[in-house]
């Protein structure tokens, strides 16, 4: 085991993937010898050559178009989009192409080798266009998998799974935690299951569900609630598509209450899907309405980031409100 931060864990996963398979390619804007603006791909060009880890021209739709083509040829294409906020020019290539490639061809062709890596989320003074959490924009898309790790250990194991998963995977990295989150990470290759939620803390009074960087807020809120005698079950959803409804439903059937928290704006975020599905599955078990603790329905404002941000205090208040419903 080694101590790694989240960036190092990702870099390590890429390194292992590229060592073990000659046809893994990593590319994106500034991801070549320079190693990317966050340095997630550092050292890869030196080690594997500029044919395997390289810069692309500045065109997200092209990066994804290229990646789809490369994956359809049978290679493993790991494309970086520099910020989640800049993934939208590639939306068509992802939603109309990657996600539908296998279905539309009757499985004559597929882009299973595709992985899209992109940093997402707020809390870094990035303002309007370096803070968005766009997972829900993709969650309405059958054919895609969407994975969001919460710490270095999860990041490495999930990224290795994502790269070799026979389906296109959108892998969203919580950039607020790139350096802030440090933990023990095995040095060898290991893979974690995509589609399985992780019960971070067991509890009996209320279920608190989050994913990615927001799990930290759920955990902190649960600690605060514990002082009030509230025993929270904290779940990391881990993957948004497919999502582990069974684990969540089992928890809610036990606790009778659910708080879902996400960084993104409330309306039509993924928390809405969870609330919709769980009220259906657990109708007779619910003792209070499912609460969503989410960003406001506004773009991301730099100067009011602290106010906008869905911090542990907001989650804590929602837990209390749900308990006293």
């Amino acid at each position, binding site marked *: 085991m080694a101590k790694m931060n989240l960036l190092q864990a990702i870099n390590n996963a890429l390194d292992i993937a590229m060592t073990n398979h000659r*046809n893994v*390619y990593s590319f994106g804007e500034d991801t070549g010898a320079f190693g990317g603006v966050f340095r997630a791909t550092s050292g890869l060009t030196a080690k594997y050559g500029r*044919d395997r880890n390289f810069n*692309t*021209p500045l*065109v997200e*739709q*092209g990066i*994804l*178009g*290229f*990646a*789809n*083509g*490369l*994956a*359809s*040829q*049978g*290679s493993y*294409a790991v494309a970086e989009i520099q910020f989640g906020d800049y993934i939208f*020019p590639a939306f*068509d*290539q992802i939603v*109309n*192409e990657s996600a*539908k490639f*296998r*279905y*539309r*061809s*009757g*499985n*004559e*062709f*597929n882009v*299973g080798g595709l992985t899209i890596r992109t940093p997402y989320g707020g809390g870094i003074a990035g303002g309007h266009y370096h803070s968005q959490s766009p997972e829900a924009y993709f969650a309405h898309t*059958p*054919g895609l*998998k969407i994975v969001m790790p919460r710490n270095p250990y999860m990041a490495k194991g999930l990224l290795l799974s994502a790269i070799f998963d*026979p*389906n296109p995977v959108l892998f969203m990295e919580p950039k607020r935690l790139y350096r802030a989150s440090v933990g023990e990470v095995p040095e060898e290759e290991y893979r974690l299951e995509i*589609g399985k939620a992780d019960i971070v803390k067991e509890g009996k009074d209320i279920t608190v569900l989050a994913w990615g960087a927001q799990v930290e807020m759920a955990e902190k809120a649960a600690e605060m609630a514990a002082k009030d005698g509230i025993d929270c079950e904290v779940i990391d959803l881990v993957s948004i598509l*497919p999502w582990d*409804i*069974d684990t969540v439903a089992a928890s809610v059937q036990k606790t009778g209450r659910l708080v879902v928290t996400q960084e993104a704006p409330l309306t039509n975020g993924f928390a809405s899907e969870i609330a919709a599905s769980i009220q259906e599955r657990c109708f007779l078990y619910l003792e209070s309405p499912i609460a969503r603790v989410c960003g406001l329905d506004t773009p991301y404002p730099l100067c009011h980031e602290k106010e906008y941000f869905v911090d542990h205090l907001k989650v804590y208040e929602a837990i209390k409100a749900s308990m006293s419903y």
Partner: protein
Amino acid sequence: MAKDTKHQLDIVTKASFLDARALNIPMLQILKEDGTLHKGVDAPDLDQDTALKIFRTMQFIRILDERMIAAQRQGRISFYLSSLGEEAASIGSAAALDSRDMIMGQYREQGALAYRGFSIEEFMNQLFSNERDLGKGRQMPVHYGCARLNFMTIASPLATQIPQATGYAYGQKMDQSGTCTICYFGEGAASEGDFHAGLNMAAVFKVPVIFFCRNNGYAISTPSQGEQYAGDGIAPRGVAYGMKTIRVDGNDVLAVYHATQLARKLAVEHNEPVLIEGMSYRMAGHSTSDDPTGYRTREEEAGWRSKDPVARFQKWLVSKGWLDNDDAESHYAEQKALVLDALKAAETIAVPHVDEIIEDVYDTPPAQLKQQLEQLKAHIRKYPEAYPKTASRLDEER
């Protein structure tokens, strides 16, 4: 003019603006409209077998197109899209490739697919969305695809295949496969952002790809000149990206074949991407949903009829002694009968089983999809008359 050593640029001290006239890109033509060779020009390196295969494919596609437009009018299929007038572009170029080369088309390249060996039955199964369609009936007619023949499944969103071709070719280069990718698209699709992305990236990455732009004068109702672009067509863009570029007469199969042969050499041997702009004309409507009389004149169409690529090639083949007009005619009749038989056979084949509805979304269906299918099947069993094409088979299963 002095040199700016850093940029290696020539320096001028008087301002002058360039425009489209700064480049004058001519068009390669080997066979004249009357079917004879330009004076003093050698025909390209094309043997009799290949030439005849090209011609037979042209004939087949003419029959298929004509027959299926009629079938659509009769309500037997929902949609069709003809390549009338553009057969030389897709077939001539496909003939110059290796069968291992990947073809990524737009939707009007049935000729290339037929040349590769897609059978009449395979065409028909796709057109009728029956259970033998390789694409499992999920896309509209003419969205063919075939892994065996290295023909990427056609998809409706325009131009998305262009950067994909660059990526595919990158993989071919890295695998040292000795193969390339050809990517077809219309001059309309060349306005999309994906065109820009794909060509620029190909030039930067130096991949073995041939971009073949079929400039047929229209994108549905929109004329290319002045409404799709204001410059001299698509070829100058290749020059701008620093890519090897050539413009050919898209109705001259010899020019198309020859240029593609040379392009393939550049691509495969030198990792030079190439842009070919084939000048042609879409003689039919855009598709069976379109009526071109709403936006162009019969005179304009007539002007192009005299440039017909098939008649032109036929004259040359006959003049070479490689083809006999009567043989051509009887072959045409035979093929027509085969097409008709295949059509009739295909339309009686069942639609895919309803279980297929959740397959291939992922490599294996997740639990939630299996559940959705079970609910759907229960519903169909309840209302079998509302879902006649699939209900009967569910009955059998019980």
